[in-house]
């Protein structure tokens, strides 16, 4: 059993996402954190200088925001759908609503449909107020376990 499968089993059994987040190198690179609240993943990205895209403002890089939204969606799929593999992104569309400031960002995803092969999610991220999202995304993931 791989460490990823172990981490996934642990997260599903205990509701503790730390080992799962740690098993995905890019999540560690970003410094992403996540917890489970009533089956809902709340992802958190503490600010650090290496996330800056515009040093003048300073503002988060749009790519960081996009990656964080996608990461929150991936974690929600892993916690909600019986799959043993990291879902493959088919596509993602991000709307940037407000500048990402030099502070912690939060994200939560909602599964709009989980089919046999494809899951569609809506994700939002915010900073000070959850009714003022800084960005929102829609994404589709391939969740079939067989090669397809």
């Amino acid at each position, binding site marked *: 059993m791989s*460490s990823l499968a172990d981490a996934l089993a642990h997260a599903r059994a205990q509701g503790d996402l730390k080992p799962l987040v740690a098993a*995905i190198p*890019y999540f560690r690179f970003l410094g992403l954190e996540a917890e489970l609240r009533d089956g809902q993943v709340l992802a958190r990205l503490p600010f650090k200088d290496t996330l800056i895209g515009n040093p003048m403002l300073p*503002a988060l*890089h749009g*790519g960081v925001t*996009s990656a964080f939204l996608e990461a929150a969606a991936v974690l929600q799929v892993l916690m909600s759908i019986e799959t043993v593999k990291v879902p493959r992104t088919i596509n993602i569309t991000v709307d940037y609503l407000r500048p990402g400031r030099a502070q912690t960002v939060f994200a939560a995803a909602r599964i709009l449909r989980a089919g046999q092969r494809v899951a569609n999610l809506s994700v939002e991220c915010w900073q000070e107020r959850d009714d003022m999202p800084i960005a929102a995304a829609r994404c589709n993931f391939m969740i079939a376990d067989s090669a397809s």
Partner: protein
Amino acid sequence: VREDFEAALRRVFDAEVPHVAALGISVEAFDGRCVVMRLPYGEELVGNPETGVLFGGAVSTLIDTACGMGVIAALETPRIVVTLDLRIDYLRPALSGRDLMVRAECYHVTRHVAFSRALAYHDDRERPVASAQGSFILARDSTRETSGLQPGAVPRDGGGDGR
């Protein structure tokens, strides 16, 4: 003048944008409205430890950076550009251990918005890993007298960023 502009852009994108530097993204080629950039493969950027494939979000950053720079390249006078939206389609799996290239083109510019498209690939542009399309808001031209009006496409909720 154009060469100065290009040199300045290279400098900004190579070293002065912390997240671009953290990913090791570099400008490979620069030609009018087209920009080619490289994301070196790095194990810390992997999204699936079982396959060693980069996380999509790292590809998003590469594409967003190249598209934004393509817009700046297409403008007559440099202005700050802000991503309004970006859609990425993953066409085939990226390969583990291989650098990723992106070629972005700004194909239309209006007064307030510019439109870009991009393809990401390893070696062969005919076999892209991802395709993307995005729109970018142009910050008001600081060299001209501007009214207090903001582009209408952005929510106006105090403490605006001048988009």
